[in-house]
């Protein structure tokens, strides 16, 4: 593990160094194709953001044009509305609770699978990795009935608990190789120094697995932020809606007011985009570790 971390940090440090001084400017063809690629990926998103700065008549008369003049009324109206903030808070509550639940439970069980030698460890790993094959879609109807019978329908807890359960497989698959690569010598040294297994877990494993934890945490948060099907089934009153449901409701209620729908939509995607941009390097690093095994 420490080896994995040190190589990965060395790797990025080296990259950073190269970027700052030695990185070549590269082939023009590389730039050309990269820019085309970026344009394809980003233009539709920019269309949504710019569309929010236009008026409806601008959008109808010239669908592909730029804002002319720029109008900020749509954004102001959305920001001033309680609906948006209520849904934002709901999404934040669900996203953060899901993330914490998945990370805490995930690292605990990954530690057991990776570091304890017992008969059922492979079975546990198989159980969770089988879960990766069955996203929520397959079980959604009975799952909804179960949530209703538990009295959790139309509550945020009714989304958080299943999301934690469904987030576990991915987390465990990423974290187990991470924890397995912590050298045995480190554990032996800790044990010799009078540290218990749990002490080793708390003092060494958790800090050392931070890159993996960050990766899974962010992926879980973004997944929860974007999740649509479960809230669609579970939530029935507007005040409980998370942002994806809110966006859909808003766009069907204001289907004539395209510009305002676009403003609402772009504000709704902002938090996930920011969160992802900040932590993007960590995610690729963590995935690299996982793929390397």
């Amino acid at each position, binding site marked *: 593990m420490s080896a994995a971390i040190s190589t990965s940090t060395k790797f990025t440090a080296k990259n950073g160094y190269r970027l700052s001084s030695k990185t*070549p400017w590269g082939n023009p063809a590389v730039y050309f194709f990269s820019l085309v690629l970026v344009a394809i990926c980003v233009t539709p998103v920019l*269309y949504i953001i710019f569309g929010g700065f236009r008026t409806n008549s601008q959008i109808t008369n010239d669908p592909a044009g730029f804002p002319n003049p720029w109008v900020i009324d749509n954004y102001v109206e959305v920001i001033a509305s309680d609906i948006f903030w209520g849904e934002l808070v709901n999404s934040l509550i669900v996203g953060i609770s899901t993330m914490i639940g998945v990370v805490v439970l995930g690292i*605990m069980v990954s530690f*057991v699978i990776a570091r304890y030698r017992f008969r059922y460890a492979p079975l546990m790993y198989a159980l*969770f990795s089988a879960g990766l*094959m069955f996203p929520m879609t397959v079980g959604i109807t*009975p799952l909804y*009935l179960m949530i209703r019978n538990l009295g959790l329908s139309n509550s945020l807890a009714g989304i958080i608990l299943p999301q934690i359960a469904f987030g576990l497989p991915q987390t465990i698959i990423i974290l187990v190789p991470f924890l397995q*690569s912590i050298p045995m010598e480190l554990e032996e040294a800790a044990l010799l120094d009078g540290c218990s297994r749990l002490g080793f877990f708390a003092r060494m494993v958790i800090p050392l697995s931070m890159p993996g934890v960050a990766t899974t945490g962010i992926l879980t948060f973004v997944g929860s932020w974007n999740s649509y099907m479960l809230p669609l089934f579970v939530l029935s009153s507007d005040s409980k809606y998370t942002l*994806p449901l809110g966006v859909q409701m808003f766009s069907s209620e204001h289907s004539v007011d395209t510009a305002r729908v676009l403003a609402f939509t772009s504000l709704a995607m902002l938090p996930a985009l920011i969160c992802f941009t900040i932590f993007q390097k960590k995610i690729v690093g963590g995935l690299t570790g996982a793929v390397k095994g």
Partner: protein
Amino acid sequence: MTSTSNTNVSVKHRSKRVTDGKVRRNIEIFILSAPAIILFCAFVILPIILGAYYGFYKWKGFGTPSKNGKFVGLQNYVTALSDPNFQAAILHTFEIVVCSLVIQAPLAILFALLLNQKFKGRALIRTLIFVPYVVSEVIVGTGWSLLLQKTGAVNQLLGKIGIEGPDWLADPKIAIWTLLLLISWKYIGFAVILMLAGMQSIPEELYEAARVDGAGFWQMQKSITLPLLAPTLRIWVFLSMIGSLQLFDLVYIIWGQYVSTTAGVSTMATYMVREGRGAGNYGYGSAVALIIFIISLIVALTYQRFVLSRDLDGALTEQKQAKKRAAKRAKEAQRLAEAAQ
């Protein structure tokens, strides 16, 4: 002689400590893993079992199926499998599974190769191509359905260069290709990042050696990158197939539950939601869910059996242990050699 008695004593000592430690160890295992296992079984495994049970009933979702519903045996399954709408949905789903792979795999490898070059601004570009993956399906759906309207921005731009754009969303001949385009746009970032991670774990020395031997760029990619990327590619194919089999959000948001059937883009999951929860037939919906489950399971197990088996357990655990063992052996051999000298 003395040494053996010594070890006997220490073994006895240890055996007591070992049993003590074993109890403690088992308690630790239980405390650490029970919450996750309970939650997982309750919300992931149990619903599937319940669904299998509900699937035998004609039931509207109130009370319990045995009291408030009617046992119909396999009737739900027969109805579903002989419904042309469901057959069409299965067909669309498999078209999506296959076409996503065919469209995305070569593009993702090419893009990853491109972004694996060293050039200024690479980090920024890598972040930007991941944007579609991070944006939620609802937002992608809302944005694209505006862009692709008959009188939308895309057709206006096409009109400027003299092409009359089709009705991207409603024309049943075109809608499924539009959907595939959107899926590729949305999910290719994930494939590229996986491939990039795979490429970065290929040792640089291989390329240097090849360069010394006079290999060209494309030759190196063909004989080094592609073969060594195969495990990553195989895992991505698996994830992509499972994702496509469950496809729901994008279709449901852009086309809605009714239009998706007429536009020819309905998937197994949209059919399930429409006929199950939408129509209030929870027994029937559960039966459809179980059919989807079985289809996914067959695809997943077949793939694992014939393609993935060498990667999943192998790459993650055994190979590494084997490597460790080999390293240890090598060290020991070295030590022995030194000692002999």
